[in-house]
Every structure is written in structure tokens, then in C-alpha cells.
């Protein structure tokens, strides 16, 4: 090896300049972070400021009304809860099933690669596209004959299921892939067959990750207005759906409707609606974080 000898006069450390660059880069990154946080802070402050005066028990339990002081979001709140659970019910078995197939059963070939790439691409498709697809497929095509589906909760849940399936599949696959292979080997070595290995060892270990992904997907689903407007098209509902084949409305639609009204009072109602929606979303995300933390500490033991 040749010995490296620095030539003193060809080196210019220029420390002063480096210090300035270092400091300015720090500032740029800090500002980038603050823009997001401050923007969110202003938004939340504005919403709270306008919405809190309208927020009371009556607001949660009243149906929408033309008179602002009597209006509430009961039907939208119940519709959102209905839609969320039905979407979860449809998405979890299909999404987890697809993830298990892709991770544990599928051969590694071009076809599965193509499927994998397409699943990730589907997660990026704008939600209105799913709304229009749902409208064409579930509302008009499957709904035209004697109103089988029509603009029902079920059609809405099916549409949202399409929207969030890629997210659930990807999150579940990641959770399944994170299960150490040594667990599988240990189970096989005791004479378990493939399904016993998956059911007994892989799924229990992957469950927290799958749940976290599912909850985050659900919180995406209930915040969506565009696809549900295409399906529901109904904003003035003075009854709550009793079963999946009834019509429905959801919080984002109700909020959208209130914002679009000319009277100032309805802005306040919209802000109060946003607070309710945010509270639901934050609760769900908090559950997801708790689950993830529990999972992480357990696997580190």
C-alpha cells in the first residue's frame, strides 16, 4: 500500500464556509418541519374556535335541519360507524387472505411480482376513481335490477373496501414478512403442516401489525368524502339505516354540505362536525399506536 501524504498547499479546509452551510441547512430543514406543524396548528385552532360553541349533546343526537340551532349529525355519525364496521368486515378477511397467499403460498414468479406491483399501484389511485367505479359497478350495474344494491350502505362499504384493500394487503404482508423464519422452522420441525404453521405461529405473531394496518386503513376510509358522495348522493337524512340495504350518509358528506351553505351558522356546524370526525380519527390512530408499541416491546424481550 502506498502511503498517503497530504500536500499542504493543495488543501483548503474553508471551515468558516462549511459552518455557514451547515447552519443554513439546519434552518431550512427546521422551517420545512415547522411549515407542516404550524399549518396544522392554525387549521385545528380555526376549527376549534368556530366549532366548539356548536358542540353539545344535542348536536350529536339530532338529525340535520334547515334551522342551524336544531341541526345535528346523528344520521351521519351512525352512517359513518355502520360504514366503518361493514368495510372492516369486508376488507379484513379478503385483505389478510390475499396477504397470506402472497407471502406464504404464492410461488415467486413473474405473475406474483406483477400482482405485487399492481397492489402497490392501486393504493395510489385517487379515491374518486374508486367512487365512480363503485357507482358504475355496484349502484348501476348490480343495482339496476329491482334495486338489489342501489345507493345502499352495502354498496358504499363495497366501494370503500376496494379503496382500502391495497392498504390492508400491504400492511398485512409486511407484518407477515416480519415474522422470523425460525418460528416457521420450529413449527414445521414438530410435524405441523403449512396451515397449522400459519394459524398457530405466523398469524398470532403478525396480528398486531395486521390490526395496526387495518385500523389505519379504516381511518382513511371514514375520512373519505369523494367516493361516498358518488355512492350515497344523499345529504339530508332524517332516519338512520337499520340494515345494510338502506340508504345512508356519512360525516364527510354532512360536513361538505354544511360548508357549502351560505349562512354563517352552518360554517360553525361544519367546524363542529370536523371536530367530531377528527376525534374519531385520532382515537383510531391512537389505538393503532398503542398496539404497535405493545407489539414492539414484546418482540424485543
Amino acid at each position, binding site marked *: 500500500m502506498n502511503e498517503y501524504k497530504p500536500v499542504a498547499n493543495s488543501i483548503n479546509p474553508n471551515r468558516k464556509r462549511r459552518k455557514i452551510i451547515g447552519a443554513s441547512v439546519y434552518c431550512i430543514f427546521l422551517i420545512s418541519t415547522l411549515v407542516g406543524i404550524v399549518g396544522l396548528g392554525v387549521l385545528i385552532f380555526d376549527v376549534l374556535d368556530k366549532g366548539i360553541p356548536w358542540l353539545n349533546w344535542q348536536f350529536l343526537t339530532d338529525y340535520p335541519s334547515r334551522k342551524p340551532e336544531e341541526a345535528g349529525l346523528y344520521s351521519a355519525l351512525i352512517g359513518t360507524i355502520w360504514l366503518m364496521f361493514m368495510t372492516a368486515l369486508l376488507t379484513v378477511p379478503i385483505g389478510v387472505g390475499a396477504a397470506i397467499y402472497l407471502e406464504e403460498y404464492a410461488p415467486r414468479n413473474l405473475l406474483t411480482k406483477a400482482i405485487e406491483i399492481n397492489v402497490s399501484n392501486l393504493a395510489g389511485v385517487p379515491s374518486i376513481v374508486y367512487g365512480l367505479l363503485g357507482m358504475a359497478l355496484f349502484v348501476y350495474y348490480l343495482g339496476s335490477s329491482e334495486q338489489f344494491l342501489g345507493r345502499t350502505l352495502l354498496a358504499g362499504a363495497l366501494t370503500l373496501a376496494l379503496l382500502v384493500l391495497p392498504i390492508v394487503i400491504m400492511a398485512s404482508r409486511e407484518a407477515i414478512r416480519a415474522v*422470523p423464519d*425460525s418460528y*416457521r*422452522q*420450529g413449527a414445521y420441525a*414438530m*410435524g*405441523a403442516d403449512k396451515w397449522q404453521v400459519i394459524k398457530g405461529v405466523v398469524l398470532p*405473531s403478525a396480528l398486531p401489525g395486521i390490526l395496526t394496518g387495518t385500523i389505519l386503513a379504516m381511518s382513511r376510509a371514514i375520512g373519505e368524502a369523494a367516493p361516498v358522495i358518488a355512492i350515497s348522493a344523499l345529504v339530508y337524512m332524517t332516519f338512520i339505516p337499520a340494515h345494510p340495504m338502506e340508504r345512508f350518509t356519512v360525516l364527510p358528506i354532512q360536513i361538505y354540505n354544511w360548508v357549502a351553505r351560505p349562512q354563517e351558522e352552518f360554517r360553525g356546524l361544519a367546524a363542529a362536525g370536523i371536530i367530531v370526525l377528527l376525534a374519531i380519527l385520532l382515537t383510531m390512530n391512537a389505538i393503532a399506536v398503542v398496539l404497535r408499541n405493545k407489539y414492539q416491546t*414484546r418482540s424485543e424481550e
Partner: protein
Amino acid sequence: MGNSTVFNIRGLNVYYGDFLAVKDVDMDIKKESVTALIGPSGCGKSTYLRCLNRMNDLIIGASVKGQVSFENRNIYDSNVDATEVRSRIGMVFQKPNPFPKSIYRNIAFGLKVNGFTGDMDEAVEKSLKQAALWDEVKDRLNDSAFTLSGGQQQRLCIARALAIQPEVILMDEPASALDPIATLAIEDLVRELKANYTIVIVTHNMQQAARVSDETAFFMVDEDRSGYLVEHDDTQKIFTNPTNQRTEEYITGRFS
């Protein structure tokens, strides 16, 4: 019955794709004895071990040619179910790999998948006692297996393998991830278990092979990086008066 053979291996070749990993192995393994597999890294001893209970089936691209007769039946015959083979020939791995479940359920798992209908508590206790772990865990059977030390985890894995009452236990460097004291505990256990079980143990540690085994098989790797069996004999003979010069050189530490 101490001297009847459990395994007759004839003309065994193992491939990973086109690569010949283990070449032409003939070996008989005696019942209720400890057979140690030694040799330098990459000589195929672990690969060979995994052929004995068809764990190589799980590796994509791996294929096995030749005959592995277990109690007079070739386990690679098309009508043999790999899960049945593995329930009769248990395995303990290099790194302790308990499931992320309670101590109790780690052991119950193997029994459940094999359709055990007897007294589960009794079976769990029995196998933990056999693995010399019962006294340390009897008050916390419902704790996670991850709360145990590495040596305890490995004994739990042995207990887990014993629970389904296999005839053979394959051990792939079971003590290489453990400290010296935990290693001695495993070695004591191996010596005890051979009264009822046939044990095949891969080890990097020649003293360990000398301490625990009745027979030793020495593997080498040829110029094509394929592993082959050099010599297989009584452990005492291998360590004091080996037939093959390469064995002697390896035993005496002239290469590793």
C-alpha cells in the same frame, strides 16, 4: 437394543439448484446413541442433518437424491408424509427459537398439531422435567418464553421437541449461541436423553463431540465445495486413532 440401526443412508446427494452440497454419503446411525457430525464450515453437515427429517423440503431449490431409510422405510418415498417424518424425528436449532407464546403453550403447540387428546398439563410437565427445566419454570408456565435466558430457551426447545415423543432428535449446533455453563447443561441433557432417544448432533466444537457422542462422523469439503463423509467410527477411535489422515489433521487442529 442398543446397537440396532435407526437410519440407513445410502448414496445420499443433496443439491441446491445445480450445486452439489453433499456428495455420496453412506451412513448407518445406531439407535439410542449419540452421533456427532463434525467438520469445517461449509462441509454440508447441517445440510445433511436437515435431510434426516426432510427439513430441506422447505428450502426452495433444494433436492435430495439417494436413500434415507428410517426404520426400514425410505423417508423420501412419494407415499411418505413429511409431517409424519418430522413428528417422529424432532429437531433443535442453532439459535433458540421458542415461539412468542407462553412456556406452556410452546410445548402444547406440538402436541396440539399432532392431535394429542390426553392430559395436556401432565404432558407439559413431563417434557419439561425430561429437559431439566421444570424446577426453573414450574411457577411461571404462563410467562412468555422470551422471559427465559438463552440456555433456558434452548432447553425449552428441547422440551418442545421431546413433548411429541419422537424417536430421534436432530440437533444443529444446539449450544453454539450459549455461554459455557448453559452449554454444559445442554451436554448433560444430551447424555441423559440417549437412554431413550437417538440423537444426531452437529457441532463445531470438537471437545463437545468427544464429550457427548458415542460415534463421530467427520465431513470435509472437496475442491468443488461439495461436502462428503470422510470417516465415521466410534468417537474414541476417531479422536485417538483415526484411519484417515485428514481426520487426524482436523482433530489435532492443523486446519479448521
